[in-house]
Every structure is written in structure tokens, then in C-alpha cells.
């Protein structure tokens, strides 16, 4: 049953799912903001409630109700609502990264927990002489509860576009390489390849080019041996991976031979230097 529902959800095209997620996150965020502003305390004695910390004339410090914005608890739901609104904007722009889902889920859970807590505890605290006020949760608590549930729906239906994360990593590695931060670029590119191992998997021809790009980054920082080893490993079973894509195989082979050529040039430069400076045998 569950898997049938999941299959159905997965079969829906990404843009529609993204729209559903963005819509429920935005709606939930708006409801959370609205619920935070609305009164959290209702009942016959609602007017008699003291909010926050006060100084009493006789007994020193005293603490009143903490419900709603005037009490302060609603700051958490307000914050969660604003976070949900920002992330909803991201989903609306077509982004679907993993941290977005984690953030929405966290904001929803936190807001839900505070709203539930207030729903359960408003009116429970007795005064110093045991008197209680006749109050209960107000409309704001219910609106915030509903908003938090909507935000959780957004987290549940969030599209998981694994390749989006990979694309972002690839671009970041490229930008770092262009700025001359070779080792940082290598770190990102290695992270990308590690993550891509599960999905889309080594058989994806694009990963061949990602690995070759990593070899190029190795060359840029002078790790000739690593670059050559990597090219060797990647091109070892390239025939199988590019079985029905001759153009791709040609491009990969061209890139690989260019890399090897550059590695040779670097080694020759080192040998030349060793020959000139320290009298090692001249390069062949």
C-alpha cells in the first residue's frame, strides 16, 4: 500500500511535485506567521493574563504566561514560518537540494512541537496560592498547528533531485579551479565523485568526464602520478561504458590523451630542471 502510494508520488513529474512542495511550504509558512500574530490564549479570563517577566512589589521577580508573541513562545513558530517561506521560494525557483528538505522538516517539527506544547499547557500553571485562570488555547495555536503540519507535508513531498546536488558541486569545483584554489577544487570534485557513486552510478558516461576533470585538477596542482593513475583507471573499462556512444568515447579518449600529454610535459619539465640544476641525466 505504502509503496504503491510512493510509486504514484514518484511518477508525478518533478515540476508538479516541486510546485506542490513550494505551495505547501509557502502556505504553511504564511499560516505559521499568521498563527504567531493571532492571540494564543482564549477563554473567559484571557484578559487577566500577565505575559512575560514582571517585577511584583512584594515578592520580587515573577513570570507570567509565555504564550503568543507577547509571551515569546510564538517567536519560534514565527522564525520557523519565515524559514519555510524562504525555502518555499527556492522550491518555486526549481531548486530541490537535500538541505532544503532537511531545513523544512526541521522548521516544521520545531514549530509543531512548540504549538503542541502550548496547546497542552495553556491554563495549567497555578499561581503561588494555587489559583488558576479559566483559559485555553486560542485561535493562534490552532492556526500555527495547521501551518506546521502543512510545512511537514512540504517536507514529505519534497522532490529529491540527486543530480541537482551533484550539479551544484560540479559548478563549485569549477569556480574554485578558475579562482586558482586547486586543492579546494579537488576536494569538491572528490566529494562529487563519492556522492555520485551510488546515484547515478559509475556507469553514467558523464562521470567519466567528471573523473577526467579531477585528473586535470590533479595536474594543475602538480600531482602527476595521481592524474596518470586516475586516467588509467577511468579509461580501463571505458569501452564497456560507452558501448553505444562512439562520439562520447572519442571525446573521452581525446581528453585522456590530452591529459597524458600534459602529464608528460610536466615530467619533462621536472627532468629538464633536474638536469640543469643538479646534473641528473638529460631527458630523452
Amino acid at each position, binding site marked *: 500500500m505504502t509503496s504503491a502510494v510512493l510509486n504514484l508520488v514518484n511518477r508525478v513529474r518533478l515540476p508538479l511535485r516541486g510546485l506542490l512542495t513550494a505551495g505547501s511550504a509557502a502556505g504553511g509558512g504564511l499560516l505559521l506567521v499568521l498563527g504567531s500574530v493571532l492571540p494564543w490564549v482564549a477563554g473567559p479570563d484571557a484578559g487577566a*493574563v*500577565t505575559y*512575560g*517577566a514582571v517585577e511584583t512589589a512584594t*515578592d520580587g*521577580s*515573577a*513570570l507570567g*504566561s*509565555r*504564550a503568543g508573541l507577547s509571551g*515569546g*513562545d510564538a*517567536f*519560534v513558530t514565527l522564525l520557523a514560518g519565515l*524559514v519555510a517561506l*524562504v525555502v518555499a*521560494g*527556492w522550491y518555486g*525557483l*526549481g*531548486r530541490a537540494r537535500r538541505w532544503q528538505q532537511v531545513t523544512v522538516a*526541521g522548521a516544521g517539527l*520545531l514549530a509543531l*512541537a*512548540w504549538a503542541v*506544547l502550548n496547546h*497542552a*499547557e*495553556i491554563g495549567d*500553571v*497555578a499561581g*503561588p496560592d494555587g*489559583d488558576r485562570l479559566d483559559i485555553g488555547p486560542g485561535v493562534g495555536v490552532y492556526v500555527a498547528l495547521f501551518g506546521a503540519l502543512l510545512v511537514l507535508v512540504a517536507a514529505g513531498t519534497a522532490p529529491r533531485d540527486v543530480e*541537482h546536488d551533484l550539479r551544484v558541486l*560540479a559548478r*563549485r*569545483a*569549477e569556480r574554485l579551479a578558475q579562482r586558482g584554489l586547486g586543492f*579546494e577544487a579537488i576536494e*569538491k570534485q572528490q566529494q*562529487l565523485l563519492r556522492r*555520485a557513486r551510488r546515484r547515478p552510478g559509475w556507469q553514467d*558516461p*558523464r*562521470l567519466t*568526464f567528471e573523473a*577526467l*576533470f579531477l585528473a*586535470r585538477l590533479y595536474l*594543475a596542482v602538480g600531482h602527476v602520478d595521481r592524474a596518470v593513475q586516475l586516467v588509467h583507471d577511468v579509461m580501463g573499462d571505458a569501452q564497456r561504458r560507452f558501448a553505444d556512444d562512439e562520439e*562520447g568515447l572519442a*571525446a573521452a579518449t*581525446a581528453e585522456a590523451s*590530452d591529459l597524458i600529454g*600534459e602529464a608528460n610535459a610536466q615530467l619533462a*619539465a621536472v627532468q629538464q*630542471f633536474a638536469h*640543469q*640544476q643538479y646534473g641528473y641525466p638529460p631527458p630523452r
Partner: protein
Amino acid sequence: MDPDKPLQSLSESELSSARWGGRAGAEQETYRREQERQRHEDQRRLEERQRSSGGRRLGAGPASGIGIGWLWDLFLLALPVIVLVAVVVGLARGTTWLAEESLLAPLFPAPGDSPARYLLSVVTLLILVPGSLGVLAARLQPTPLRLPARIILMPAAVLLVPVVCYVTQVTATADLIRLPS
């Protein structure tokens, strides 16, 4: 030719004659310039390659959507700054101020609170204070600010965990009267 002229400012032909004249350091300077040229060449080839075979990579194609990352960064920066200011001022003025008058006051547990509220307060504070600092530090990793993030923000986040736990313990056992609510 002026033999005292620094090697870095020599032209190519002057450097070449200095090398033949056996001037000290001229070889190294030649090698350094060669390396410099090589680096520039590498950079150029890298960019050229990205234009040709880069079309087959995962990162190919224009970035999707409009960049609103700065909004998120602003939020991530504002949150820990506000929280840190509140905590530092609170530590200076005493925990009473922190638990009664600061912006974070409602998050600190008071005497007589239920265990559920105490737990939720501590979790929320841990997410807001060390959590936001940690996220900010992680966010700064690919930027030139990664070193300060690593040596200042991360230790600060770790140190704030016991501080938060201690302050919540203090406010939960403070001398405070609860009004009916």
C-alpha cells in the same frame, strides 16, 4: 648593465645575459618565470577544456533559477549574531537578565516547568545557538573565510553547548514566582 638591479625587474634579454654572465640567482629567476608561464598556460588550457569537453559533464548548462542565496546568507548571519549578542550580554549582566528580559527569555525554562518544556527549550536553544554557528561555519567553507570559520566559529559552537546547558539549569532553578497562566 646595472649589476645591482633586482632580478625580478630585469627584462628577458637582460636576464639571459645575466645568466651567461654567471650572476647568482639568475638561473632560479629564469626557472621561476618559466613556472609562472607554465601556470598561466595551465589555467588557459583548463578554461579552454571546460568550453570544449565540459559540455558532457554533470555541471553543464546554465544555473537553474535566480540566485537568492544572499537572502539565506543574510538570515544565517543575522541569526547567530543576534543570539551571540544576547548570550554575551546575558553572561555579562547575569542569567536573570537572560531569562527574563532578553529576546531569548521565553526559551529558557523557568522553575515549575514540565520536563517536556525543559527538553524542548534546551533542544531549541541548542539548534539556535551552536547549531546556527555550525551551519554558518559550514556555509563559509568554500569561501576565503574558511580559516576563521574553522578556528573561531566551530570552537565557539562547541564551547556554547555546555554554556547553554548550564544557563538553562540555572534559570530552571532560579528564585521566581509563577503567575497563573
